């Protein structure tokens, strides 16, 4: 008999020292202390008064903290001991695709030949960068079934807005800019979708989901008309379900002259299995930080390229990298909507994504989708009978559970499960989203977690439910988390008495 396996993704062993709060950088400051040093240049040492007219000169330096490098390093290192991350363990945060990011992607982003290039350098001096960007664009188009892409949008929401401006430019070019005023989104959509629609100059029409958790096609037909600019859909949707009628949905929108926009938040589920272009989508944004292993950085940077069908390519933001007879160059499409980023997008994040695609290859990407869906499917089966599964049908990369019955019986809410799970050595799922599910727990294990980790996560979730059921109340979960650097945080107080800087303390 081999010894029992331990789950690699359970983080309950992380050591922590003491229970004190970490002082701020500003409290570590001592006047006259400094870490900075500068290179020897031999440039003449004019004084500030000789260089800048007196009326512009400030009287004293900005009040930055004065710390030694030792204290600076200790402070920001101690902060990392108060922070959970994918590299410590599983992070089943639904809709965020918190997969493990291969370290080789970090390595390539530090190569000086990439990291030290100025974005305004002449194309002839940055042929490696342009080749990389063209290769990435080509691969993203192949993966999504599109014809051309812009790599400029720096995040998913920026990609959405870019896509809506492309939609606007398309209708404008066809003399329908004034008439088409509405964009349709399902009630399960991410909040960025309606916010982007408004910034794109459109109004939102919400279409309900049916009892299967998918877009209600009859209801959709009821709101379609020649004033519709398009529809924004996530597929698989935020319930983790594939929109089985997607081809008919796209055709119905096309029939009234609208465009069909793909929110790529959940692209991880379908890599190499099916393509938005084949489903009928016209515009596709991707979240490279979710699907293609750009690390999430505590909340960014991400990258949100937008790919389009051939007729829309002429409207893409410029300049775009293109292959020429003799190498690579920049070009701006004739009817470009214009730049959406100060330079070429989050280029080092794009390089990381390209390295992930190169390492995985076509077969590897399909394997990613397959195992992401397998993991989520296994966990859904594991949690049957433990939590409510409102849409207990074949899921893709994630599924949504709920504590509705447990709340009624014991008072256990989704937020309690989330906080209690932290004590078990796992990050919480996404809670209270999508909005159409009561007490939602949106769970996305991703493909990089092992069966042992899934089993341990399933066991932990079961313990939390059992604990409430046997006690007849949710007291244990209400008290959680007790093992974390701080206990439950008073969010209401933060909003009521705003302290957004160190200098606002005590005001």
């Amino acid at each position, binding site marked *: 008999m081999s010894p029992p396996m331990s789950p690699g993704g359970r983080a309950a062993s992380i050591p922590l020292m003491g229970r004190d709060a970490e002082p701020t950088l500003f409290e570590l400051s001592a006047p006259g202390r400094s870490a900075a040093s500068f290179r020897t240049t031999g440039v003449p040492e004019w004084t500030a008064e000789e260089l800048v007219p007196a009326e512009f000169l400030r009287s004293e330096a900005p009040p930055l903290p004065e710390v030694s490098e030792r204290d600076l390093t200790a402070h920001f290192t101690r902060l990392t001991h108060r922070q959970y991350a994918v590299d410590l363990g599983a992070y089943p945060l639904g809709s965020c695709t918190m997969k493990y990011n291969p370290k080789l992607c970090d390595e390539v982003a530090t190569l000086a030949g990439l990291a030290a290039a100025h974005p305004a350098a002449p194309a002839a001096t940055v042929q490696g960068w342009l080749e990389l960007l063209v290769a990435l664009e080509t691969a993203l188009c192949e993966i999504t079934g599109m014809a051309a892409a812009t790599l400029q949008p720096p995040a998913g929401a920026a990609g959405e807005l870019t896509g809506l401006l492309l939609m606007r430019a398309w209708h404008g070019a066809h003399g329908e800019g004034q008439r088409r005023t509405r964009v349709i989104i399902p009630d399960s959509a991410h909040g960025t979708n309606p916010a982007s629609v408004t910034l794109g100059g459109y109004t939102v029409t919400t279409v309900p989901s049916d009892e299967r958790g998918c877009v209600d096609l009859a209801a959709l037909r009821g709101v379609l008309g020649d004033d519709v600019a398009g529809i924004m859909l996530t597929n698989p949707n935020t319930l983790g379900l594939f929109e089985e009628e997607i081809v008919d949905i796209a055709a119905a929108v096309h029939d009234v002259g609208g465009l069909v926009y793909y929110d790529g938040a959940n692209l991880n589920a379908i890599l190499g299995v099916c393509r938005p272009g084949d489903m009928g989508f016209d515009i596709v944004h991707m979240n490279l930080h979710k699907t293609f292993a750009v690390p999430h950085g505590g909340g960014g940077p991400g990258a949100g390229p937008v790919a389009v069908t051939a007729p829309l390519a002429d409207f893409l933001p410029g300049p775009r990298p293109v292959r020429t007879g003799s190498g690579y160059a920049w070009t701006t499409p004739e009817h470009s909507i214009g730049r959406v*980023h100060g330079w070429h997008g989050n280029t080092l994040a794009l390089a990381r994504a390209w390295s992930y695609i190169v390492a995985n290859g076509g077969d590897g990407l399909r394997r990613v989708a397959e195992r992401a869906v397998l993991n989520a499917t296994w966990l859904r089966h594991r949690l049957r009978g433990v939590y409510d599964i409102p849409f207990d049908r074949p899921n893709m990369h994630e599924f949504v559970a709920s504590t509705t019955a447990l709340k009624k019986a014991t008072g256990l809410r989704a937020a309690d499960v989330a906080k209690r799970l932290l004590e078990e050595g796992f990050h919480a799922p996404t809670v209270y989203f999508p909005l159409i599910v009561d007490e939602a727990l949106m769970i996305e294990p991703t493909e990089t977690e092992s069966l042992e980790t899934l089993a341990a996560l399933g066991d932990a979730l079961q313990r939390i439910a059992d604990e409430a059921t046997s006690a007849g109340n949710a007291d244990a979960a209400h008290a959680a988390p007790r093992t974390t650097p701080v206990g439950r945080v008073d969010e209401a107080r933060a909003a009521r008495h705003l302290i957004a800087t160190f200098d606002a303390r005590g005001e």
Partner: protein
Amino acid sequence: MADFTPHTAADIASMLDFCGLASLDELWTTVPAAIRLAAGTLDLDPGRSEPDTIAEFERLAAANRVGAELVCFAGGGAYDHDVAAVVRRVAFRAEYVTAYTPYQPEVAQGVLQALFEYQTLVARLTGLPIANASLYDGATAAVEGVNLAVAATANQRVLVSAAVNPRTVEVIRTLAAGTGHVVDVAPLDRSGATAWPVQGSAGAVVVQYPNYLGVIEDVSAARAAADAAGAFLVVIMDPVAMGLLRSPGPLGADVVVGDGQVFGTPLSFGGPYVGLFACRQEHVRRLPGRLVGETVDVNGTTSYVTTLRTREQDIRREKASSNVCTNQTLIAVCCAIQLGWLGASGLREMALRCARGTRYARESLLGIAGVEPLVDGPVLREFAVRTPVPAATVIDRMADEGFLAGIAIDDDGLLIAVTERRTRDEIDRFAAAMDKVTR
């Protein structure tokens, strides 16, 4: 081929069995057969091992000329500053790199406190009381500043100085197609500063400080112009310049934006950088992006959490004034650590060294026959000259001499930036090469 999934054949068999599935293909029953691809359909190369992937990237990296091969005198929004070793070594710890948005504050105090400190640093640099937890880059931060001003004043006319970075202006115009803002340009005087006042009312007045030509604008004059137009004043600030120049907040800015790349982030071919955003206290309910606030936990321990969340898109949905979700947290952390390393005296020294190099380079270049100042206003670390041959030609020829000479402005203007990294020897060789290529 690299494989980042842990599944053994036995795992897969046992998982399929548990789920009542006969094969992996049965995972896809809800995907219509007509659009389902067979395995291997994608026209992508087979996967590669880790060493082979890195070797491919070394080949791509070697096809770019950087560092000593192309000594950088270009700026225009991206600057070649030294990055402290502590930034690379600490900010790129896995806990900062591989966390996500701090939705569970009890296990995200590290990122939250770092952002709280970043907000404090940005507030102190700008001289305004409120700063958010970062936006994408300087250009998109400017758009958010304009949107805040327009929403607050209910006036969609946006008056942009002609010496705002043209790429920033283009992004403002691109996004104005959706919001319906009307963008007008305020001209420059002979010194290269904006010629205020301007006619008519507006929602936003936008000025860059120092401006795209390197000239130090009079923020108080822009404030007066904004007052005359009934507008909010949005200042696009070079944060390095705050080592020497008066902060825009006390000079009358309602909103200050900028790009924090200059503190701790290499040129990176343009991204990821970090958009700085600060505003007056009374505008906090219109603040775009995330905001971290200080509070306590159940035991009264100081804690941090994202706050005033009801402003944000996931709650307000179509009524939100910004769609920002993911921001640039990791780059904000880099920025905070670099600013901590610099400290008050270090930031002043950094700005002073930029200004000295700029003075030295400018005087050296203006000694070359046919090279003239494009404008004559006071500059800090960037300046523009008129060249006797077209600027694009100068840039190409200078690349052959081993220099990134700058950025072309129209036909015969060249924008040149000098950071604290540039030595006297580099500047002397730069000037000699410029003399050669402009003959």
